């Protein structure tokens, strides 16, 4: 099964060097284990835009943005056996944040891809 991991946080901040190193180690292991297909961090919303439909009107919002409660900071795509494995992976990933970036709050959402 394919899963998408979406990391959101109310207080986006640059990862500490220790966290970066730990995440690098984890992703290296996961690539070599054939489980991680893709991953990436995302720049702040100011580097992009929002294209939205509201009340039937399409608009491009190019900023300034009222900061959302939760910002998406990064994502990863994994190919795993089942939901249990997917959750175990997310727990391990978030534990790294707990260990190496004290004070950070955030959520890692785990979602199965539609389809096979």
């Amino acid at each position, binding site marked *: 099964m394919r899963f998408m991991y979406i990391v959101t946080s109310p207080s986006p901040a640059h990862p500490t060097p220790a966290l970066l190193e730990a995440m690098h*180690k984890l992703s*290296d*292991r996961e*690539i*070599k*284990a*054939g*489980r991680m*297909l893709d991953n990436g961090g995302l720049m702040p919303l100011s580097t992009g835009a929002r294209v939205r439909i509201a009340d039937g009107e399409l608009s491009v919002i190019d900023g300034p943005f009222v900061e959302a409660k939760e910002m998406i900071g990064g994502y990863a795509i994994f*190919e795993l*056996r*089942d939901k*249990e*494995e997917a*959750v*175990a*992976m997310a*727990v*391990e990933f978030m*534990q790294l944040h*707990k260990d190496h970036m004290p004070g950070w709050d955030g959520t890692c959402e785990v979602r199965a891809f539609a*389809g*096979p």
Partner: protein
Amino acid sequence: MPVPDNSTRPAASATEADAHRSIIAVWRVEQPRLITSLARMLRDVPLAEDLTQEALLAALEHWPATGVPDRPGAWLMATAKRRALDHLRRRKMLARKHDIVARDMEQEQQAMPDFDAALDDNIGDEMLRLVFTACHPVLSREARAALALRMICGLTTGEIARAFLTPEPTIAQRITRAKRTLSESGLAYETPRGEELAKRLRSVLEVVYLIFNEGYTAAHGPDWLRPQLCHEALRMGRVLIAIAPLEPEAHGLLALMELNASRTAARTDEAGEPVLLPDQNRALWDRLQIRRGLQALARARELGGAGGPYALQAAIVACHAEADTATDTNWTRIAGLYAALATAVPSPVIELNRAVAVGMAEGPAAGLAIVDRLTGEPALKAYHLLPGVRGDLLHKLGRFTEARVAFEAAAALAGNQRERELMKRRAAEAAGASRAR
């Protein structure tokens, strides 16, 4: 049984089975690293595998009460290492080798918790060694496949048995024997180099492809675990290119598997019946997987491996993947690739496939000329697709009476019910066309 209240479900009614599944999932993530690091210390892969299983049992015993530790990997590693020490002590240090190993381990134990770091640095090498051991040519192909699924993918004996539609005791025995063979053969636990590496790699790729096909060719039926075999094979293929990135055929095999697997959703209809390639809904093909397959194929070529058997087969599948509709298929290129494949690995079956491609590219007469050269081939004597392909080409040439005879011969040889019916249907069509003249 009372209906569980969803709002309180996680804490209140999570069953023991759920908890076990979560623990096994955590263990499976850690398992390759557990095996490889124990194997490196013990120089005995089968023993390392046993101890890794024991660590799982310990986790299943303790974690439901204590909860999953913050660093489950470290817990499992420490437990497995303790078991290794116990094991060596029980054997009363029969050999000096064990003495040294035990001393090293005690030192490592004292040096904890920093043991992770050194291992993480060469997990690739360790995995490669494990893969080469599990797929050692001293073992039969079936034994290699079972061991690989067990030691690299962390499948249980029961899961492997269901996947291969084989009774569990048979698989258990196969694994036990294979592990004994490995233990008794005194094989060095090392990464082969040079010529030896290429030879051993073929043995690994063969097993991975065997596992893939076991899952891929039986896409229908009620057995949900079989697609899982494709996933496991793909995962091993990705492991191989990550740990042996300069081996073109590893990329070629991964490309072949990714490209074939990209069609999974389109290969069966809603009733679970197989849908043949020309009739598949190409919108259902997995674009991400196709892209990955094409990337792997490009890498195989960059590494000088365009002519490898796996890369050539992948290139053929890529021709289909890149065609928007069945009629857009570049048959001339496919025919050329089959010719190259037939040169690399001469086989009458490949030649028959080439005949189909040539028939599409240059017309049925050219295809038939190749097929007719194959009729005396002993290896194809009982192969239903030889008269099947011949019948198709004859039909296209308007030689309906001969086509009917060929399709009837194909129906008589077909082992699969569905294919037999298809051949009979085509024989009847040919008979009808011949009467309508």
